[in-house]
């Protein structure tokens, strides 16, 4: 076997090996909204909000949910929060909710002042490693999941890979997908109201 052929075979084998789950990143960005048949159920969890109330993800079934894993120490997360506040305001009456899951180890002592400082208008829950693992480890923040009305993950965004309008388009697409069944506004109306 020539050296060149050996090198090619080794490269192919390494690539194949590294493509398995043990070696690939736990959560990888899937920018596009998946087709309905390719979506997997969002893992259920129960976490507490800042008032101490236990909140189940299942409570949001029937709505499109933007589930944002973030932390107060994560500067890129701070860029997205105003976008999500805007989406919460604009789409809340159309069956949409933003849910933030803070991964701060120091808990509410740091999260509450941050919520107040940024005047966050959506629900924040305090996350933990267990929930992080359910969602693939969430090694990098921000990591955002868009969940459809059936409680299935439609897209995953890791880091500041996409802009505000990309998020908005994905949300509108998900709201639109189920508008025929729910009687919600069609796409043009949704986009126009979002401008």
């Amino acid at each position, binding site marked *: 076997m020539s050296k060149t052929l050996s090198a090619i075979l*080794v490269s192919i*084998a*390494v690539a194949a*090996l*590294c493509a398995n789950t*043990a*070696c690939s990143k736990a959560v990888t960005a899937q920018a596009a909204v998946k087709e309905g048949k390719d979506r997997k159920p969002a893992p259920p969890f129960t976490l507490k909000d800042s008032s101490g109330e236990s909140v189940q993800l299942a409570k949001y079934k029937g709505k499109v949910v933007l589930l944002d894993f973030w*932390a*107060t*120490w*994560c*500067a*890129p*997360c*701070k*860029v997205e929060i105003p976008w999500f506040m805007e989406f919460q305001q604009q789409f809340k009456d159309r069956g949409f909710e933003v849910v933030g899951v803070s*991964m701060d*180890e120091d808990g509410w002592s*740091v999260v509450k002042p*941050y919520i107040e400082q940024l005047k966050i208008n959506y629900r924040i829950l305090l996350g933990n490693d267990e929930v992080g693992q359910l969602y693939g480890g969430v*090694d*990098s*923040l*921000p990591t955002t999941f868009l969940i459809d009305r059936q409680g299935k993950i439609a897209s995953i965004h*890791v*880091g*500041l*890979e996409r802009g505000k309008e990309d998020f908005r388009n994905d949300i509108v697409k998900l709201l639109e997908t189920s508008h025929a069944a729910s009687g919600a506004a069609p796409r043009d109306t949704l986009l126009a109201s979002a401008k």
Partner: protein
Amino acid sequence: MALLLATPCLRAQNSDVLTVATPDRLSIKRGASGEVRLKAELRAGFHVNSNTPADEFLIPLRLTWAKEPLEVEQITFPKPQSEKYDFSPNPVSVFSGTFEIVTRFKAPPSSKPGMAIVTGKLRYQACNNKECLAPKTLEVRVTADLQ
């Protein structure tokens, strides 16, 4: 062949964004002072907050040492870099690339002569231009020859 195939994955799983080289052995006389230099290296594209970040919510780089067998006289961080990133309208106080943290220790006169291990913890929080990683604490060890 199997070893060749496995190596890149193992490296990827075990790799840390920040690594610290094993510091040189510190030879120090009882009652005297001596310096230890920790050489840290960050993976390309990543930075850690400096020891004095401007934003109150950012996690500073912090080095702490066990109280024994040596006393810490001073910890000196390098001058931070002021860098601009996509996620911040203002420059951020960071360290990137390679940098050194110098600790000045004093050996108490009552120290027992011989070899000793000094343990410390380096707490850091790393980001790149788009995302951040959870804060981590790295254990560091210095071998001290107390004379």
